[in-house]
């Protein structure tokens, strides 16, 4: 999508799509499908588009579950840098208390020498948890093969999943 006149599209900055919405669980399927179709048109790779769509769903689900904003105001940004990298970023209100363990988890996932082995390890851990799966981010790392990062700025948490276009780690 490279039409600079279209709302939400700023191709010179590599931004493909930006959505800000009071997000509910019932929105997730529609957004995931939209991202899959949109990214297929951008990267021309159905598997990569599906990986990005899966990451979008898992990140948005986390944002809806853990947002500290009562309206669940969530932002989704999808960006592609001219044939180099593609990224999905989800932003929601959060706190340092919620973000600190997230940083630790993302460091573990990104530094794991074998992401599949790390995913299997996390599945085992997940089965011991009473609530939640704790598998969404591990799935993005291992299955979607995307690198994860996060930052907290002025009470807004941004979690990004990204990869190089045309390459698998």
């Amino acid at each position, binding site marked *: 999508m490279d039409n600079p006149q279209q709302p939400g599209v700023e191709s010179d900055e590599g931004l493909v799509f930006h959505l800000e919405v009071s997000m509910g*669980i019932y929105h997730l*399927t529609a957004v995931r499908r939209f991202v899959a179709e949109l990214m297929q048109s951008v990267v021309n790779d159905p598997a990569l588009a599906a990986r990005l769509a*899966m990451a979008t769903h898992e990140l948005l689900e986390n944002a809806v579950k853990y947002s500290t904003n009562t309206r669940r105001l969530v932002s989704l940004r999808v960006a592609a840098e001219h044939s180099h990298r593609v990224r999905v970023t989800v932003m929601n209100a959060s706190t340092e208390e919620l973000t600190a363990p997230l940083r630790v988890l993302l460091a573990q996932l990104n530094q794991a020498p074998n992401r599949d082995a790390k995913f*299997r390890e996390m*599945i085992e851990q*997940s*089965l011991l948890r009473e609530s939640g799966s704790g*598998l969404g981010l591990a*799935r993005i790392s291992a299955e979607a093969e995307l690198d994860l990062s996060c930052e907290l700025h002025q009470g807004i948490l941004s979690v990004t999943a990204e990869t190089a276009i045309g390459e698998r780690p």
Partner: protein
Amino acid sequence: MITEELSLRRDTFSVKTMRVPGNKLHLQMDGCADLRVQNDIAVLLDRIHKEARNTSVTTVIVNMENLEFLNSGCFKCLCSWVRWMLGGPRSYVVTIISSPKHHWQTRSLSALRQLAPDLISVEVVSNPPPV
């Protein structure tokens, strides 16, 4: 004929369970399994497991050809099911039918199978209809 007590119907997701000849249960999973149906799936899989354990079922076939998406919470439900299978007499196996048109299935189902490779098998349909 659909076995209603082992089936589930929600707006975006359904599981239709049928008994088929050869002491088999056939589960047809369709749609999108997300946060909204996690608890329902957990309860249903518990029922399926108990039914299989307590009757003469030897194989549970799970057809995921039309399962467009499964979130991580619902994936955990499948992992828990495998754990229950490993926790007692191994009276039945699970055969999952997957489709390459849903890319998530390749890696997720491979990870699931690795929890119990002797009990779980994954068959990939060839020439699936386009999405």
